[in-house]
């Protein structure tokens, strides 16, 4: 599964980056490809490229606040959760998303 993700927490200092690191680890373990953009106090980092978004199976918004640029994901399935869920159970989250994406795909066919 190819995932594009945006992480953003309330103060944009710690949880955003902890969530990013947890997702990257979980994705690696599951054999998923993930690109994580962070929108924090420091600004946007690791901004997603149009190519990454075009290739993605799903967009994951791990956000506690309103983030910018969500219109970029209008053509792909989007899942929105809070950063705390990502920090708590990143692997389970990705597994659940994968199931959902599969389901949506099979419904289309």
């Amino acid at each position, binding site marked *: 599964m190819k995932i594009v993700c945006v992480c953003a927490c309330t*103060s944009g200092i710690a949880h955003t980056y*902890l969530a*990013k690191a947890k997702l990257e680890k979980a994705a690696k373990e599951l054999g998923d490809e993930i690109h994580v953009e962070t929108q924090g106090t*420091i600004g946007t980092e690791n901004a997603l490229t149009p190519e990454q978004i075009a290739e993605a199976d799903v967009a994951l918004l791990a956000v506690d606040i309103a983030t910018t640029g969500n219109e970029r994901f209008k053509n792909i399935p989007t899942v929105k959760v809070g950063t705390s869920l990502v920090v708590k159970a990143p692997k389970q989250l990705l597994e659940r998303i994968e199931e959902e994406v599969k389901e949506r795909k099979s419904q289309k066919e």
Partner: protein
Amino acid sequence: MADKEINIAKVINLNLIDLHLNGKTKKDVIKELSTLLKEDDDITNTQDFIDDVFLREEEGETGIGQGVAIPHGKSKAVKNTMIAIGLSDHPIPWETLDDKPVTAVILFAVRNQDADTLHLKLLQRVAILLSDDDFIDKLHAAKNKKNVIDLLCGNKGR
């Protein structure tokens, strides 16, 4: 990455570590760690800083599970963006993601005006370290202050 050690050492020092917190509550512990920051001359006013930390606490749990909490205060009372670390021999009740109390508290003190992106980058790095179970285990097991700093700086030691 050769300068990694020097870098992280900019946001932590031996004065900002307490291996045996006395506080039994979240409030006491935040006060204890804030006092360290004041004594190290990183914040100008302890109570103003604590108030800002509690503002953030109201927005959501800062206990990230595995016995660790990362309260943070972005405050005009902060002179230098730093972290203070406290370990405790007794469990401290905290709002956490796994509903368990904590024995390690990492308090982030962040300057209100983020002129200094370098320091924010270093805090990011600390947050990233906390995604590593091995790091968390070693933090809980740290025997002395130097241990804690070595861990943060990525010196695995033995």
